[in-house]
């Protein structure tokens, strides 16, 4: 069966000061950094350059290769699409940009959104690449996040791979019976797979819960 190397898809194993720093400090640093970035006026471009240099410095120190981070930055694409639409959708004074007449506010908002989103995604990926998921969970616990929230996130990380594997096996079983997702008419089968997966995950959740109860877990906030 499918076996994954230990650790998570976003984590890059290495030994660096950034890897060794306590997870809760890294989380606080990321949160603080992002608050500052978001609060900076959208047109203060030199200031953003300084932020970018700081972030690049951290990446260099962490020894995570840029070639590792860059492909993972693709998660930003929905924001990019939205940012590209803004200059055309926003109203107000018009200006010309690359020969097109676009909204001035829209253009500025798009630029600011792109810059902030890029810095945010890069910073979050750096955290994920240098901190193992269980360390992050411990960090959140040390930051006194509500017990239930931490538990939910821990379960998500624990079962993400299980559900992904399950999804993969269902896809193999589907394709083995000649299924090809080539046209929208096939969406029905995909939707049914999705709902079956949902029910199975839900039932697994119940089984996990029962197994926890049988080992003396107290559902009312007990930290057994």
């Amino acid at each position, binding site marked *: 069966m499918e076996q994954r190397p230990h650790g998570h898809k976003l984590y890059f194993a290495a030994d660096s000061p950034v890897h060794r720093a306590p997870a809760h400090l890294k989380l606080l640093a990321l949160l603080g950094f992002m608050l500052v970035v978001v609060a900076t006026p959208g047109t203060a471009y030199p200031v953003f350059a300084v932020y970018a240099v700081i972030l690049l410095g951290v990446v260099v120190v962490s020894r995570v290769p840029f070639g590792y981070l860059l492909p993972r930055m693709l998660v930003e694409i929905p924001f990019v699409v939205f940012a590209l639409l803004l200059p055309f959708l926003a109203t107000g004074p018009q200006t010309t940009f690359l020969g097109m007449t676009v909204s001035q506010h829209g253009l500025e908002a798009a630029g600011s959104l792109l810059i902030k989103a890029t810095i945010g995604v890069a910073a979050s990926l750096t955290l994920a690449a240098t901190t193992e998921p269980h360390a992050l969970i411990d960090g959140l616990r040390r930051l006194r996040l509500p017990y239930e929230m931490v538990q939910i996130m821990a379960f998500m990380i624990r079962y993400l791979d299980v559900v992904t594997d399950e999804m993969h096996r269902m896809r193999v079983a589907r394709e083995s019976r*000649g299924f090809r997702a080539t046209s929208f008419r096939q969406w029905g089968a995909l939707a049914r797979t999705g709902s079956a997966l949902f029910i199975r995950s839900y039932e697994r959740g119940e089984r996990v819960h029962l197994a926890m109860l049988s080992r003396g877990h107290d559902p009312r906030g007990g930290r057994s």
Partner: protein
Amino acid sequence: MSVPVIDVRGLAYAYPDGRQVLYGVDLHIHPGERVALLGPNGAGKTTLVLHLNGILLPGAGTVEVSGMPVVKKNFPEIRRRVGIVFQDPDDQLFSATVRDDVAFGPANLGLRGDALERRVLHALDQVGMAEYADRPPHHLSFGQRRRVAVATVLAMEPQILVLDEPSSNLDPMARRELADIVRALDVTVLMVTHDLPYALELCPRAVVLSDGVVAADSDTRKLLSDEDFMRAHRLELPYGFDPRTV
């Protein structure tokens, strides 16, 4: 001899993460045979099976099904000819009713209307589940779900039925019923299993895969009786079971 249903030559495969699982496997299965594929966990049995219908493609070597090479342009025909029943029936059953699930494969082959309905009922009949056609699969017992999973593949009228651990998690009665169903089918069978008595009962021929190569390919009874060989390949008969006296 006839054209083999399955003709695997020099098959080698490594997963994208670099872990090599198969190191040159040769396997030929002729029409009408029932062959057991044995071997310890991690020997590469499932990896080999996934090559038979092109879910995985060889790193080296070739796979042919009734003379047809397993390459992308042949996938629809290959997947009709090679029916794989996976170990966990829940991976295979995802529809609201048993009927829809059994119809999924033949519908992918382009069957519609009456022809499709006949296929579905015939397949369900072969596994003794016809009366459950309109039930939701997740309300059936595990043994019934496994039988429906077999039907979802039989409905495609495959030339070879590949069963991945067919007896796992079945109670003895369900295990017996499934054996009777397999015996009654007029189809070539490749059965991947750890259940050695089951292999002896159903398959006259056994192939042992060990560390990514075929370690033995012979008469099942002879093979299971060779204690030194069995131990060397991490195979173990159930307590008190003697293949020479069955």
